């Protein structure tokens, strides 16, 4: 399956290579670099590139290309999904997945890659098993290791691999037993010029951080499970139980994991929490354009809209923008033509606005396209779909865990066309 893996940074250097079968020369990446040059944007490099003898399947994350070399037929998603899993694992281990982090921990990275694939076929991808095999580096451990010469590799053998609950370590112990669940919903929307909603949908996830001793068996039920239209589960969730009772029943992995992601059924009308008044015009003949943007809250159920960030890709003809924000700060990058405005919190009494002029290339005709505006925001303590967790029960262990649940709504791909 996966023959080799090359890690390529933004400047086109291969800074790590790993081979699971016989060695493939790194010159195979030349085909990738060619494709990279052809693509105007980094994300436009085709994920699958055929070469005379191999196929290159790549993913781009954190400005690093993970290029897998394939020799024969394999489902491309299989490789892509695996590569993303590798990135997730690195992130889990090192906190960030940057070139520097990988270079600093190159031995751990190599050990991980060795365990994750055997002969190109995934072997252990579950983070809990990997952590049993290879301890994640911490500052303290790194120091101790350098002094005492002890190791990152787990001393005991990884029994987790043999378990039927491969996602959970055995013998977990905590003094404070806690289980936290974050219900995070994202609104994907396209709002058209006139302010009407073209499409809007809510996608949500439940991220959990469970630190419980032993082998707890949890059930989580919702007040209104009917809202959930389409769901995908962490493998620990018992599907049958969900089908029958709409209850999430599971033995949780240890630590952080994504329990559930869901899609709220499209019959429910989506409340759009913000509105945008915009007036972006370019006049024919003049080298000036007007930019006028006002944000306001709408259908937020009394909750404050926070961390608002507006960004817009202005037309290429715009040389500079001279704007005046009523609150927050804005930046305009004259190279990428990216305007971003960090608004902060929306005060319903005094709506934030950004007004001013844009200067255009002298003599150029007015750009005929209008920029679309992307908005990010957060609303705490509210799930916009109205989803509510009813209760969380634990079986199988005797202690009383501390349980917490948090709701949040965020903008996903929230776009306003002008």
């Amino acid at each position, binding site marked *: 399956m996966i023959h080799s893996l090359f890690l390529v940074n933004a400047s086109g250097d291969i800074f790590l290579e790993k081979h699971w079968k*016989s060695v493939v020369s790194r010159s195979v990446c030349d085909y990738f670099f060619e494709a990279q040059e052809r693509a105007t944007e980094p994300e436009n490099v085709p994920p699958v590139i055929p070469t005379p003898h191999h196929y290159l399947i790549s993913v781009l994350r954190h400005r690093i290309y993970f290029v897998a070399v394939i020799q024969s037929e394999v489902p491309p998603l299989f490789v892509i999904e695996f590569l993303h899993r590798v990135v997730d694992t690195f992130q889990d281990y090192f906190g960030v997945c940057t070139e520097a982090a990988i270079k600093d921990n190159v031995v751990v990275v190599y050990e991980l890659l060795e365990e994750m694939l055997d002969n190109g076929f995934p072997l252990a991808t579950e983070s809990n098993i990997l952590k049993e095999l290879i301890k994640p580096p911490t500052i303290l451990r790194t120091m101790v290791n350098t002094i005492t*010469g002890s190791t990152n590799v787990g001393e005991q053998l990884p029994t987790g691999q043999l378990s039927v609950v491969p996602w959970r370590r055995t013998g977990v112990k905590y003094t404070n037993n806690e289980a936290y669940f974050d219900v995070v919903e994202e609104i994907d929307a396209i709002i058209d010029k006139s302010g009407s909603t073209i499409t809007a949908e809510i996608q949500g996830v439940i991220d959990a951080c469970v630190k419980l001793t032993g082998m707890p068996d949890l059930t989580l039920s919702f007040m209104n499970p009917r809202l959930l239209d*389409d769901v995908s589960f962490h493998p620990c969730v018992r599907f049958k139980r969900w089908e029958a009772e709409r209850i999430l029943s599971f033995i949780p992995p240890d630590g952080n994991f994504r329990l559930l992601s869901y899609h709220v059924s499209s019959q429910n009308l989506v409340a759009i929490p913000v509105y945008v008044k915009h007036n972006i015009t370019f006049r024919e003949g003049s080298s000036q354009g007007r930019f006028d943007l006002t944000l306001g809250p709408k259908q937020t159920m009394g909750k404050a809209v926070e961390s608002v960030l507006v960004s817009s890709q202005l037309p290429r003809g715009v040389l500079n923008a001279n704007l005046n924000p009523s609150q927050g700060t804005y930046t305009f990058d004259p190279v990428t033509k990216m305007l971003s405005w960090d608004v902060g919190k929306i005060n319903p009494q005094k709506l934030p606005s950004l007004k001013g002029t844009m200067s255009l290339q002298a003599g150029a005709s007015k750009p005929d396209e209008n920029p679309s505006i992307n908005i990010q925001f957060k609303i705490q303590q509210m799930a916009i779909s109205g989803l509510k967790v009813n209760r969380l029960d634990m079986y199988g262990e005797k202690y009383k865990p501390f349980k917490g649940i948090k709701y949040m709504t965020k903008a996903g791909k929230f776009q306003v066309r002008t």
Partner: protein
Amino acid sequence: MSCATSDLEVQEEEEEEGGGGDHEERAHLEEGGGGGGSFQTQPLRHDDLKEMLDSNKDSLKLEAMKRIVAMIARGKNASDLFPAVVKNVACKNIEVKKLVYVYLVRYAEEQQDLALLSISTFQRGLKDPNQLIRASALRVLSSIRVTIIVPIMMLAIKEAASDMSPYVRKTAAHAIPKLYSLDPEQKDQLIEVIEKLLADKTTLVAGSVVMAFEEVCPERIDLIHKNYRKLCNLLIDVEEWGQVVIINMLTRYARTQFLNPNINESLLEEGSGGDKTFYGSDEDEDEDEEEKEKNAEAPAMAKRKPYVMDPDHRLLLRNTKPLLQSRNAAVVMAVAQLYFHLAPKAEVGVIAKALVRLLRSHSEVQYVVLQNVATMTIKRRGMFEPYLKSFYIRSTDPTQIKVLKLEVLTNLANETNISTILREFQTYIKSMDKDFVAATIQAIGRCATNIGEVRDTCLNGLVQLLSNRDELVVAESVVVIKKLLQMQPEKHSDIIKHMAKLTDNIQVPMARASILWLIGEYCEHVPKIAPDVLRKMAKSFTNEEDIVKLQIINLAAKLYLTNSKQTKLLTQYVLNLAKYDQNYDIRDRARFIRQLIVPTEKSGALSKYAKKLFLALKPAPVLESPFKDRDHFQLGSLSHLLNAKAGGYQELPDWPEAAPDPSVRNVEVKDSVPEWTKCSSREKRKEKKVEKPFYSDSEGESGPTESADSESDSASGSESGSGSEESGSGSESVESEEGSESEEEEEDEEEKNKKKKKKELKKPVQESESEQSSEEEERKPERKSKQRKSDSESESDEEESESESSQSESEDSESEAEIKKKKKAAESKPPTKPVKKENKKEKKEMSLLDLDDFEPAPSPQVTPVNTFLSNSLVTDLEGLSLSDTVLSPATIAPSSALKNYELLHRITGEGLSVEYCFSRQPFSPDANMVAVQMQFTNNATSDTKNLHMEDVKLQSGMRVKEFPEIELLPAGETAAAVMGIDFCDSTQAANFQLCTHTKKFFVSIQPPVGELMRPIFLTENEFKKEQGQLMGMNEITEKLTLDAKCRNEHAIVQRVTTAANLSRVPCGSDKECSPPVPPPDHPIHRFAGRTVTSSSLVLVTVATKEEGAAQLTVNCEKMLIGTMLVKDILLALTQ
């Protein structure tokens, strides 16, 4: 220093041993020896590293190995360190060892001889008592790509394939493709190993071995037959990567083994060149429909048979469906392609939602999913139509995603949604991303060709775009307009005029060329403008691009032919210019055209036809999706994505004309199926009993039961659970597991032998029937066991209900046992709890092997049913006839003998639970039917209305008398009804839907063989006479040892009558004749009955002998029934 030198010597020796001994290497070594102690210098030289590796300190070794690994990672050559590294292969420090392995695997291929030094270490590792060490040794050994050790690898793989640890077996499966790629000669031997591992019953191995199968021998589809059902059932518990591989393989398998579920439809499609359904507008489609009706060839229609889906085909679809909910995009895609290629058209729709969900994922995932969706939308547009808006494009999407979404939107366009789609397209045209705008214009063109109604709108829109400032946009529009105009040029001369004007402004060569071609082609529509355009072009000829020049010549030629008066001179001029052009193509063209159109003396022949040549009607181009016909590649595959066959791609075979023999998938019941059931259950519980299989917990643990269950579990510790579970199965340690496994195998062996004997017995005569029945028998336990493992969709409820009742393996057995325990306590029989449970468990496990579970129904709900029923007449009779000694009529047919089966569990039934039992009363409306007593309980909070049955699916000959509709079943209430089923003396299940006013549940009733008969009264003499006529093939005799608790007359009678609806033949005759004689020590018990449908006699004799030995004889015309009955009674008596 001296230490270092001695090490050095060792090294040299080793080198010589390995035969490597190249001088360069040694030179390095000497250097290293000389410059000892200088390893602080940065960066470390190889010799310093060697020295560190030679040191005694693990920390130094580790440091050196880390640096070496970092070198490998950067792609630096570290091969000359091989001798120094390989020495450390036996190092005690785990991390050093691991890093040495990493190094070895990387460089062994280059340094084959030296690598051999490490082999003995691994061979030792292969014998280690710890399974993880064995596995890791095999893993590294098989990763070393050294041809010389192929025999060693082969041996190691073979050994590991029969290792007791599933993890080692998994590693063996991984090693197979490694060895195969190293030495393809080994294929045959490896196939043997694969075959063996395919039969493995653990989820751990399944994915890996199928992977090996796909790499080594994907063509040996016959190896899958026996494992097909097992793989389907295990699928949900296999790790996600294995699931992908298995699903892809099963897709191919199903294509070779089952019939096309859309067979009728595809016949029709072929009848009228099917693809029009997409490209034609819907009007056309309607026409097509009619056409189809007419056209469909008569033989094709005649060939059409009612399609019945193979149950195995259904099994696959059912067991893969829940995986659509996987978090792993590859699994979801695999299921989606399986459904696309295998499911009946009506069911494919379920995958749409899951695929749309994947669009939220990373852009690479989106890219692949959209490619597949694009292909699917061509064949099955309706599926994605509800999700149209999910394909709307955002300005932030990468261009390649935008283009793919556009493709999907175009494919989805029809006249109902075209207006919305076009409105969307209008916004896209304003995008800054010009490549995307160009793609949008082409998409508009395609919509216009496909949907007649909007052709004019689109054309107008495109014409407006001609005044766009962006040249690319205009150019693309011109090209598309050209294509559209070709369809109906006569209507659009004004557009042509408009375009003619554009020649002044547009500079993009392709667009100019298109306009010129248009004017030339339709010059008769614009007779005044055309010459003028030519005039302008002639002026600028020398400055034009090549393709434009060619079109100018073209235009000139066409005008010359139609309007030579005005354009003769211009044409001459243009041709003269072309004659001296730099490009030889243009010179050639000019010469060629001149010869054709300007008649000279020499070349008159062709010029006659010039008009025909130039002014022929050209067919309109077909604008079609690049994704058309891509579905001949298996979706989700690399080949599909690239639209080219990738190496190693396995063609998706066409459906077979006739289904191959489905019986190849049958598995010996006792041989494998129950074994893996047990085995996997053991796997599952091995660790801790709270660990439950992935997804598939059984329903039993739900609701209040669960909480009670698990609480008590935790209170009493795990001892009770494991105690009950571990009766004869492995504990945590592998060794003991192994021991029990072998025991079991022995048992199984015996049972298998028995079974074989029996089979031999019946086969010669009624081959077909017996086969069918054995298949039935075999399937049933398998289904039962599956329940725990797989979660099946609601359609599978039929089986669930069965398994619910008799099925015991999984968690609910605990709760069940709990209930029983309480019950027993109430009956004031206080045995020690664990023992009690263990017994139960044992019984249950045994019963799993067979059709029926003879344990009296434990559930407390039994009581209401039984009060409702009266004991049958026959049991009364029996009581009378046996008035004398041991038996009292009250106990002879205890009411609890009526076993309750579950038809619908309250969870699957969403609050409605249904139980049924065979009431053993004659069914009054039809004497040939078996009466089935159903009891409905509404556990939901709302009322259930209009409870009735629908859609009865029966084997031929079977009939059903439906129970009267229950109008209203209030919440919490219970109702009863009786239905009759004529099973035709077979144990085929009756499948039907149980409908309420809102829901439908698929359920099935499958009778144990003992319920297919009704008791008759015979005297002993009559019995003997009848028996005398049913000898030979109609008699089946089996020896048995009676269960310790079942040696008295009462118990025997009770057990037999429970197992089968028979009446006892009064056998006291000899006693009656001579009362003084004490009852014989070894009485013979006789039972008689007739089958319900065909009234064939069923005679059962149990002759007891010394010490619980006994002989069971069954005489029955229907041998099939006889065989099954023997088994059931045998089980009842030996338990």
